[in-house]
């Protein structure tokens, strides 16, 4: 029985983290109709920022996380203005190819800058765990989970309560209508992309603490973001959280009760099934589906 509890705890903790990794990806895809293949590299860049701060200035990664988010915000804004904006109105898979090229550049730039080594941010306290009977809850992962869920909820609040948040949603639903009402779509898109990159950077800092990372682990984060974004419904912040938790549990239980190697097959099986049965995703709202595409 404890095995089930332990893997459920682990699945939830991991799921919260995966949600934070994917929420930005889902936002950009839902609102801007852009699939960002370089999303995983933003996560790893966030890890390196936190790692560098920890190594040179001894800053705890959970503080370094904010610096990582800030750096990635600026980087995201610039990437949108310089690159993504040039093909924003092109057919959908133009942005896929553009970000594929961007991913190649960023991964290999990181290999040159930081070498291909596997890194992890060492904090004294992250490794220990609270023991509830046989079930152990590691501090690092628990803190990561709380921060991840907190940031995602903050994003949900931001999207529905602030002026900029509503502008982003409106532009996502009908860009031309939004522009008619004086919303500068280009700036809104750039801010959306920057927010997504910042969330990825923050997630990167946490991932770097609880696990290991190297430039080569970037594509895995992008693929997981795909599954979560579709599971939760595109552009749906709640959906990303739910999708993350579901994927975390599926992978954890899958690993527990099926052979370890089947876990990824299960994840993609779930992805394809959800797509065919309910393209709008678990919590996705149909209106995103019927968005007017100019």
């Amino acid at each position, binding site marked *: 029985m404890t095995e089930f509890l332990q893997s459920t705890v682990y699945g939830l903790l991991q799921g919260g983290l995966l949600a934070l990794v994917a929420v930005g990806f889902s936002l950009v*895809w839902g609102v801007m*109709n852009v*699939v960002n293949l370089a999303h995983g590299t933003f996560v790893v860049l966030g890890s390196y920022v936190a790692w560098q701060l920890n190594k040179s200035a001894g800053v705890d990664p959970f503080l370094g996380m904010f610096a990582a988010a800030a750096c990635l915000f600026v980087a995201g804004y610039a990437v949108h203005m310089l*690159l993504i*904006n*040039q*093909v*924003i*109105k*092109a*057919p*959908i*898979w*133009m942005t*896929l*190819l*553009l970000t*594929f*090229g*961007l*991913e*190649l*550049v960023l*991964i*290999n*730039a990181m290999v*040159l800058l930081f070498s291909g080594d596997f890194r992890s941010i060492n904090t004294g306290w992250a490794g220990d765990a609270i023991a509830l009977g046989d079930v152990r809850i590691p501090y690092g992962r628990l803190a990561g989970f709380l921060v991840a869920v907190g940031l995602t909820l903050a994003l949900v609040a931001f999207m529905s309560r602030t002026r900029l948040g509503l502008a982003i949603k409106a532009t996502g639903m009908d860009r031309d209508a939004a522009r008619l009402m004086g919303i500068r*779509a*280009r700036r809104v*898109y750039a801010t959306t992309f920057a927010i997504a990159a910042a969330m990825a950077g923050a997630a990167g800092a946490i991932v770097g603490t609880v696990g290991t990372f190297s430039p080569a682990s970037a*594509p895995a984060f992008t*693929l997981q973001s*795909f*599954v979560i974004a*579709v599971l939760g419904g*595109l552009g749906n912040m709640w959906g990303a959280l739910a999708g993350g938790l579901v994927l975390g549990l599926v992978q954890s239980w899958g690993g527990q009760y099926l*052979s370890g*190697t*089947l876990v*990824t*097959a299960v994840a*993609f*099986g779930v*992805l*394809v099934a959800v*797509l*065919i049965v309910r*393209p709008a995703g678990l919590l996705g709202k149909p209106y995103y589906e019927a968005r007017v595409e100019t």
Partner: protein
Amino acid sequence: MATDPQAGKPASAEGPGGARRLGFLSGRAGWVAAAVALLFFIALPVQLYGSQQRTLAAAFMFVALAQGWNLIGGFAGYPSFGNVVFFGLGGYTTAILMAKAGASFYVALPAAALVGLGFAALMGVPVLRLRGHYFAIATLGVAEGMREVVLNLDGLTGGGSGLTVPAVGSEATTSYPGNAGFYYMFLALAVLATAVVLWVSRSRFGYGLRAINQDEDAAAAMGIDTTRAKIGAFALAGVITSLAGAMYAFQQITIYPVRLFDVQFTLLMVVMAVIGGSGTVVGPVLGALGLLFLSEYLRDNLTDYHTIVFGVIIVVAVILLPQGLVRFVRDGWRTRRFSLLDNVRAYRL
């Protein structure tokens, strides 16, 4: 054959009107150029090195892969991000038949084509109901999922430890064709794939696909059975891609799921088809040859930076040539204005 260049519009009177094709390669001149190119490539390997033959064989393989993708992504407008699933299945069908059933390669090859055809039809029915991003991501999901399935069927596929085709040494079922042999094999596949795309582009089936690409509801209203047409295009793509996979597996002798279902294959074939000119006949050929020689050249000369430069080139090419090289040249030829900035302005916000 009166043509009036002064009118600024090269009349393609002699060729059937049809969709606007590459101005200077349409009609008879096109056939002449194709024949010359084919003869050239047939004669070439004699004075080539083994590794140069191998590089060109890889180029021809990518021509076939790009043309396969062109059928479903370019013509029908359904951007599949999972064509590598046919590549992997074709490869593994061949390897399993040769290694486990002792079949000869020339028996395993058609079997691989059948597997490609069958899986495309089977997968097409549910997946082709989705559109746009959802279709792209569903096909990506199927490809990634299939890699994991093959990885877990250790008994049949050897899983992570790979599977070896008996091509060298005593129990080889088929003599190993060597670099020259594979050069001609992949050349034939590239020619076959391009011929299929040429036939499709001029056939009723091709027009139907283009109609679906532009506006599926309008196409349905015109009597086009969109489901059958889409599955047809997907199956053709499946056959061509699985044939390429079969030849690749034989060439590599030892194959691994991680390599045969590598998403890099899909992304490369899409980049090549799109930058060359998706929805055209010549586009993917130029895209595949051009990009492959580019990456070979880069890898030889800037060992540390070649992937970065390749990434930058893709980014720049996508921004400046979103509609692809062929269509850019054709429109430019038609309107006498070759301006890259128009492209950028067209899609910029």
